[in-house]
């Protein structure tokens, strides 16, 4: 299993969804259930953190490469 902090929002959310479904639908040993629950909680916290800390990333294609886009330097209206 990947470390949670390495997961993208989509990956974390999908795994969280899976865990919830498994906990809801399958029988587990107490130990497995607790492990699932703990991972689910960590995934939810990770998702929340990613959402709350998200900052729009803007890049532009420039001479065949991607460079950060400087919004402030955008200039006047066309």
């Amino acid at each position, binding site marked *: 299993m990947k470390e949670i902090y390495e997961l*993208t*929002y*989509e990956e974390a*959310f999908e795994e*969280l*969804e899976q*865990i*919830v479904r498994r*906990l*809801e639908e399958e029988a*587990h040993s*107490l130990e497995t*259930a*607790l492990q699932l*629950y703990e991972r*689910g*909680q960590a995934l*939810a916290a990770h*998702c*929340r953190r*990613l*959402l*709350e800390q*998200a*900052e*729009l*990333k*803007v*890049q*532009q*294609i*420039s001479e065949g490469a*991607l460079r950060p*886009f400087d*919004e402030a330097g*955008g*200039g*006047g*209206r*066309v």
Partner: protein
Amino acid sequence: MSRQPSLFAPLIWSVSDLTRYLRILLEDDPALQDVWVRGEISNLSRPVSGHVYFTIKDQGASLRCVMWRSDAARLRLPLQDGLAVEAHGTISIYEPAGQYQLYVDAIRPQGEGALYQEFLRLKQRLEAEGLFDEARKRPLPLLPRRIGVVTSPSGAALRDVLNTLRRRLPLVEVVLAPSSVQGDEAVPELVAALEALNCYLKPDVILLARGGGSMEDLWAFNDERVVRAVAASEAPVISGVGHQTDFTLVDFAADVRAPTPTAAAELATPLTLEDLLANVGGLEERLGLAMEGLLERRKRDLQELEAGLRFASPIHRLQREQQRLDERARRLLAAVAQGLEREALQLKGLERRLQALSPLAVLSRGYGILSDLQTGEPIVHVRQVVPGMHFVVRLADGRFEAWAGDKKEEFFDEGDL
């Protein structure tokens, strides 16, 4: 030679009648009631009433024009003296001034009419080719990760798009493919931008954005090459070109048409940050409930097992055995006690019977036992007695000594005793 007017004509017009006659003449001519006139604006005047007065002219003539406030309010292009325009309206006469004029209801820049014809021709051709078919439209992703934006890097459209995306879903990654959006460079740059995004960056959706402008300004978005590039795009395209009322061919070729760049950015992000947070919250709640339910079931199972265990445990069996033992002991004791009682009763019966046989018992019925005082021998026959003999009488409650008097022998049957 000019002809002399007759001084005695049958009818002499009043100015009003003649002017009204001319007005009706003009208003009855359908060609003059739906007319486009080309010329240059001059003498523009906008009094506080909101109506607009101007003249349009060319080298040879000029035409007075008036545009009522309600029509003027719908003007898309700012009027100014010297502007070459095409004006649409009806010809009539303003009777107080005796002046014919064009009552304008629409104005467009000169040349746009021809452009519009071209627009319609191209639209028809591409439509017939199936380029605008509904079946070609692809659904937009619910949660895009990478959004390609094709627009001018310095335009207000880009600012609107970025602000909207930042407000709704700052989670996305924006890749700007900069391009001119008007002028000679616009068409090849727009095509190249779309291709670069599709080939190398694989965005989940592409926004094609530009602020409002005249039909001429927006012309690149009606160019066949651009329209075809949009239709061929691998990623679904949202067009947000111009204002609400502007339509370009790109709008028809795009998968979704948005009225403005801001609206395009909104359509590209059907789910906002708030929606996602709510989704995570919902899952978190379900996670908690699932775990709670699971623990609850476990607890119940455990309680049942515990109850079973208590029943089956050696302690419990020992207790039960102990109880049985106690029970037996109790019954045994009871039996013993009962036995003893029976014995006691029997003993009493025997005792009674023994007593009945005892000589003492006979004594209690009033008999006495005599015995020789000297020898202690019982005296049972009169012949043993000598008058004056000293003997002992034993009764039930004691004894006394006595002396024998005269004797007389008598014989009794055994049964008389």
